[in-house]
């Protein structure tokens, strides 16, 4: 038995009356990769924040390398050799790699000595772990995968022996993720301990030695990865059996309902985000757009749905042209049968301080059934909301509850219920399952397939390649604002991954 790097005993943490962590025991062996999985809100991040000193546990103790440790601040954690790579990078965008690495560990008032020391240290780390980054590159010029590498370097520079990675692959292409995993393997061989927090079961299976499952604030199981299966882990996470693969029949595409031609969109700085994109979506098919986040998918959706102005190009909705010049009016598009489940439900799709029933009509609030002249028909609005709650199993079933108090999955169901119940012709969906728990993912996928089978045209954008592959009838890959390839759902992950990374069509096809 290897020695123990970290042992948590009876950790509990409450926020008010919410038990984020209840009596957690966890033992992490030194020199292993230990996965922690669980749905959103299961308490993974809270637990890691306690370990890293952001929060203090109400009860319980933490042993590091066999000794009781008092971790009250992140600097305590760093002193104990614990490093953390956050999901959202904590880097100064216009600093160089070197400057970011020494930030907070500068040493003395003048920088030149610490810079020189950091430079030689970085060279050593690069040699030892294959973590190549140009130390003088400016962060904002680096791709996301390299930025993440800088975060890892930062932790190692501070002498981390135990590295916590919080959802590290969310922003990476499959190839970048593979590269990250190779680095993690390398670190493990050098004797580092790695804690990997993720909700992707496949990653757990691919790289971890042990895996712990959390559910509703408790640690429900710890398994040796080799002795468990994806099915078992999923069941442990959700507490019941889940269908991981959506079942769907053959698509029977009909006429083109949504047609985009030569669409070009620029962002507020004038950078071209969508570059001459053309696509068609037919009735009864799901067209998936794959791509690493930030390659123009968001802007494409915004332009099609009238939220953002397009520079040039045309969009045709059910044979009728859409005016893109002044940013088409989203209200008008809705009336013409285009429903839109936006990528960012927190700021766009929902108004979180609203009561649930007020969100259940957002965007459709001009419809006569919700109004009495200029007045809101409160009775009708709430009845309508209750109906949707019932039909989409939104919990808790309380249409007067503040929307912010629903879980991510239920919030997404509120949006989906609203958009799908309008019986649209075209459904535009962005990141339908981001931050949504496994149980709700199953439900959402089923509803999307239902929509397709009812003859709707569905355009789906997701950074989850698995989701794209299991739902789509056709897959378009976006890279740097352009559609760089089209594949069928049978395309391999590797092939799509190459396209997502911008490898040319011909090379990817071989």
């Amino acid at each position: 038995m290897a020695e123990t790097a970290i042992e948590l005993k009876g950790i509990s943490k409450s926020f008010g009356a919410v038990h984020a962590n209840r009596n957690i025991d966890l033992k992490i062996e030194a020199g292993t990769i230990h996965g922690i999985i669980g749905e959103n809100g299961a308490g993974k991040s809270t637990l890691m924040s306690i370990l890293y000193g952001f929060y203090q546990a109400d009860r319980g103790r933490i042993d590091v390398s066999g000794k009781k440790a008092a971790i009250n601040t992140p600097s305590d954690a760093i002193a104990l050799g614990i490093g953390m790579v956050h999901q959202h990078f904590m880097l100064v965008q216009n600093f160089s790699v070197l400057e970011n690495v020494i930030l907070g560990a500068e040493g003395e008032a003048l920088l030149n000595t610490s810079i020189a020391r950091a430079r030689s240290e970085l060279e050593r780390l690069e040699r030892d772990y294959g973590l190549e980054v140009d130390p003088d590159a400016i962060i904002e010029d680096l791709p996301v995968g390299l930025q993440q590498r800088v975060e890892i370097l930062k932790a190692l520079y501070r002498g981390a022996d135990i590295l916590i990675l919080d959802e590290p692959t969310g922003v990476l292409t499959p190839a970048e993720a593979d590269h990250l995993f190779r680095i993690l393997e390398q670190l493990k061989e050098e004797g580092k301990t790695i804690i990997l927090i993720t909700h992707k079961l496949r990653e757990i299976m691919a790289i971890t030695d042990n895996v712990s499952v959390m559910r509703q604030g408790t640690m429900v199981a710890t398994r040796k990865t080799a002795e468990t299966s994806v099915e078992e882990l999923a069941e442990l996470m959700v507490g019941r059996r889940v269908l991981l693969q959506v079942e769907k029949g053959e698509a029977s595409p009909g006429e083109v309902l949504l047609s985009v031609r030569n669409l070009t969109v620029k962002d507020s700085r004038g950078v071209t985000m969508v570059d001459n994109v053309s696509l068609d979506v037919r009735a009864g098919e799901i067209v998936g757009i794959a791509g690493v986040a930030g390659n123009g998918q968001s802007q494409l959706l915004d332009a099609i749905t009238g939220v953002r102005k397009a520079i040039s190009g045309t969009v045709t909705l059910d044979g009728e042209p859409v005016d893109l010049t002044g940013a088409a009016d989203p209200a008008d598009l809705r009336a013409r049968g285009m429903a839109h489940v936006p990528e960012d439900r927190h700021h766009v799709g929902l108004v979180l301080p609203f009561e649930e029933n007020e969100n259940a009509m957002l965007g459709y609030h001009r419809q006569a059934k919700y109004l009495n002249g200029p007045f809101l028909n409160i009775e009708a609005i709430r009845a309508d909301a209750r109906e949707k709650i019932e039909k989409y199993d939104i919990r808790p079933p309380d249409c007067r509850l503040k929307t912010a108090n629903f879980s991510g999955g239920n919030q997404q169901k509120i949006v989906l219920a609203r958009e799908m119940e309008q019986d649209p012709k075209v459904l535009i969906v962005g990141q339908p399952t981001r931050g949504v728990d496994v149980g709700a993912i199953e439900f959402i996928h089923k509803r999307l397939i239902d929509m397709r089978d009812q003859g709707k045209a569905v355009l789906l954008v997701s950074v989850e390649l698995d989701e794209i592959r299991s739902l789509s009838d056709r897959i378009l890959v976006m890279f740097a604002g352009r559609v760089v390839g089209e594949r069928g759902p049978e395309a391999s992950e590797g092939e799509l991954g190459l396209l997502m990374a911008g490898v040319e069509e011909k090379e990817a096809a071989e």
Partner: protein
Amino acid sequence: MSAPYAKLPAWADYGLIPLINLAVAFLVAGLVVMLVGENPFRAAAILVEGALGRGQNIAYTLYYATSFIFTGLAVAVAFHCSLFNIGGEGQAYVGGLGVAVVCLAFDSILPWWVVFPLAILGAALFGAAWAFIPAYFQARRGSHIVITTIMFNFIAASLMVYLLVNVLKPAGAQAPQTRNFLEGGQLPKLNWVLEAMGFSIRSAPFNLSFLLALLAAFLVWVLIWRTRLGYEIRMRGFSPKAARYAGVSETKIIIITMLISGALAGMMALNPVMGDQNRLQIDFVTGAGFVGIAVALMGRSHPAGIVPAAILFGMLYQGGAELAFEMPNISRDMIVIIQGLVILFAGALEHMFRPSIQALFASLSPRSAGVEAQQGEGG
């Protein structure tokens, strides 16, 4: 992790927390009173006595409160759209011009009950017009409404001085004010209501516009929570992106909200101009526009909170005048200090006591903290 705070029951949210904030504001104000060498308890007693002690004082308190209800509502409506209209002062000032124009034109030929609705219209129109320009710049050009509205306060002040001195002043008069309105330009007093309740009143300016203020408070509630327009205003206020997504034109909603806000601020002028002085005077607003900010903050932008908050500030104004009279060390500026403290504690530091109160509630009774609902989720 998302905000790790438990939810509070509504009564604590809307009642307890404002009261605690208020109590702290008064505590600090008491320290200031001590600092100038007076007994804070005696000062408090004089203040309350001066505000509510006799019928006369109550009538004055309600007279001030009337103005504050209007300006508080004006600020609150804009708040709901996430606009900080601090131009209530100027909008009320220009609103007074609207009242005066109507009264001067019709006071000799029409009875007050015909002039009154016209004056309401005049006040609202002029106030709204004064709010329109900053609103337009905000909506179309992104010029920040806080900056523009405060500049418009100064422009309004200069404009009104010019008009009063050069246009509205009767020939030969010394004071920069209009002629006195005749009977048609005078609102009936409401002192008889208090007298009917057994108070005695010598003379006080408490007048009919108080009822109009209460009606306006009710209508603002209807507007914000019961109409489509109010729904869109709140939507834009909480989340401009969601409003854009829902097809609500930001330009339109900003301008409409500011017009309503300006109209409410303008209607404040009815109270002093038509209800009390019966002429348009220089500087008749005397800070009511700014008090409206404190009132809206304290009332949590809800009419049911704004009316009591306005009455409280009415008490401060009336009681403060008595206090300044009784305690020579304390000037009227003391009231401004208390106001400032209320704004500080009720507005800027609104969340200062919240975490500890939430922790207290959670430890007292976990159920009342209302978080179980969030956890009701599950497989």
